[in-house]
């Protein structure tokens, strides 16, 4: 809650409400109606997903046109949360839903930690220190952000299976699990590094340098200045970055699919690969189960987003002010 307070304590930039300068009332209504119309299919899919998860069969929206009632049930939610999926899923797999959630959480927290740490360090150097190749490295970072991830994926995965097969040949159990998760987290976090270094540099750029300067003149080292003078001033930026990268790790599909699922022959599921498996193996009639998993997966994202929307928006656009 302290975090929420920190995030909300931002000055609301309001513009003067001036009847003269707004378009005419009727035009505003037309614009709003047009945007609403364009949003309708999208809005519908989200509502139907939530309704379907509480329903015996998929809610298609036609029920409302035909006046048919929706038969509500909690059985898919019960099955999902108690992990009794074997009665519903065709393949004889045991899926531990809580373990799946834990896996997803480990990946998201790991990505958040790695990204926040690495870019808080590098962002400071790029913002405040002068060194050779500084401009070249900044350009490299921007280029890397736009680099096709799928090209890297082949190399990263080859390195991964080679490591598992040679260096970790005899290692099993907890050691192997740790290596598998660490690799997934580092690989996924690296994808966020260019953007987040750029973002963090932007946050450091906004801090007036007088305070830092006086610390440096008083003989404090760069590292101490960073830790004790600068970090407290960019707290909102760090919070934004931590949330941002947490959500990136939480929502990821490709990396958890390739490294945690394919790479271990399906040993570690996360919510993303669980949904993938459910949709692939469910009878159409049982599809509300996948909807329940989807809602469960979506909830933290929505909650975080609602809590920190303003901050995230600022973080998103902060890097590209011309």
């Amino acid at each position, binding site marked *: 809650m302290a975090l929420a307070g920190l995030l909300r304590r931002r000055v609301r930039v309001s513009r003067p409400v001036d009847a003269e300068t*707004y378009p005419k009332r009727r035009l505003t209504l037309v614009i709003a109606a047009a945007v609403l119309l364009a949003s309708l299919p999208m809005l519908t899919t989200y509502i139907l997903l939530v309704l379907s998860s509480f329903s015996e069969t998929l809610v298609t929206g036609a029920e409302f046109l035909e006046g048919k009632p929706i038969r509500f049930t909690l059985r898919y939610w019960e099955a999902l949360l108690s992990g009794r999926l074997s009665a519903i899923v065709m393949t004889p797999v045991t899926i531990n839903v809580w373990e799946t959630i834990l896996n997803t959480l480990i990946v998201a927290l790991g990505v958040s930690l790695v990204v926040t740490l690495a870019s808080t360090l590098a962002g400071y150097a790029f913002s405040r*220190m*002068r060194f050779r190749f500084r*401009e070249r490295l900044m350009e490299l970072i921007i280029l890397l952000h736009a680099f*096709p991830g*799928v090209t890297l994926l082949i190399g990263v995965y080859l390195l991964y299976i080679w490591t598992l097969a040679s260096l970790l040949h005899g290692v099993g159990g907890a050691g192997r699990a740790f290596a598998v998760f660490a690799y997934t987290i580092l690989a996924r976090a690296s994808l966020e590094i260019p953007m987040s270094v750029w973002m963090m540099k932007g946050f450091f750029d906004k801090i007036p340098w007088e305070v830092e300067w006086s610390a440096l003149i008083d003989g404090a*080292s*760069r590292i101490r200045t960073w830790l004790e003078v600068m970090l407290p001033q960019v707290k909102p930026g760090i919070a934004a970055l931590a949330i941002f990268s947490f959500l990136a790790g939480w929502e990821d599909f490709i990396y958890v699919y390739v490294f945690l699922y394919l790479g271990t022959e399906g040993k570690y599921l996360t919510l993303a690969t669980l949904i993938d498996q459910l949709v692939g193996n469910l009878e159409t009639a049982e599809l509300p189960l996948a909807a329940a998993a989807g809602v469960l997966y979506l909830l933290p994202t929505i909650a975080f987003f609602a809590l920190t*929307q303003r901050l995230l928006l600022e973080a998103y656009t902060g890097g590209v002010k011309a």
Partner: protein
Amino acid sequence: MKMAGRNAALLFFLAPAFILIALFYLVPLAITVYVSFTDMQNWSLYTLRLLPNPLFNYARLFHMMLYDPDFVKVVYTTIVFTLVTLAFNVLGGLGLAIAVYLMEERLSGFFRGLWLLPRMTPVAVYALLWYYFFLGSRDGTLNAILMALGVIDKPVQWGTDPRLLPWSAWAIIIYVNVLVGVSFGMLIFYSALRSIPWEQVIAARVDGASTLQLVRHILIPSIRWHIMFVTVWQLLSLLTTYAHIFLLVEWGVVDRWWSSTWALYVFTTAFGLGGGGPSSTYQGLAAAAAVILALVGAGLGLLALRLLGFRRMIVPPKGEL
């Protein structure tokens, strides 16, 4: 002494990020290039040997472009998908940004939040939403609604019916992508519009400018740089996105080849399509296609850096002693 301390500090700050960049960008890139010169299959390390003709995979891709009917579909799909989605993303984002800019604050906030939802939604859930929507049975939202309205009398396989291909599959992947893509343009354009001095807008209004004139002569000209930025950036990211198309293809919502973009082709060739059943994967071929994609991406990226003048944005640090 002081110099040494400074360099140590620099190492401390930059090392973590650059170790990650070296390990997960530079090294893999070199490996991928090497793999493209081999005939690696099924991730077997034994097949990781240089081909007699190292450029064989590239020649093969070129040959496929001419004679493999499935790969021809991939090429067409990539071109159509990228250009059409780009146009919709930029223009849609611009339209949306102007619309929310002209609205009252509370309404504007609601719509901005709503349109960010697809971007925030985990990709598996997002694909699931559209899986339900375009499902080919009578449980699919689109089918059910059209049947209830009496437009069609039996369910249509929207993304796979041969009579509707390739247009329906293209329409689906483009539509699904545009809903995510417009929010990027919306965010950038909206924040740019908000930084136009309010006096300028008032002055135009006082002079009797209509809303259309305001948009054409004040708003759009002042965010020209941002329009260029968003166009280039979206082009780069459209070349590389494939995650939700992969899921839609895997779940059978859309036809495999008429929905495979170049990036998805690389992924499915290297990692398979999932969904069970033994299938061979060809890393050598995939790596060659990946290298071509990277070359195009890097070329466009460099062009973008020059075009957008990123150098000017990198202000030199002030606080150096």
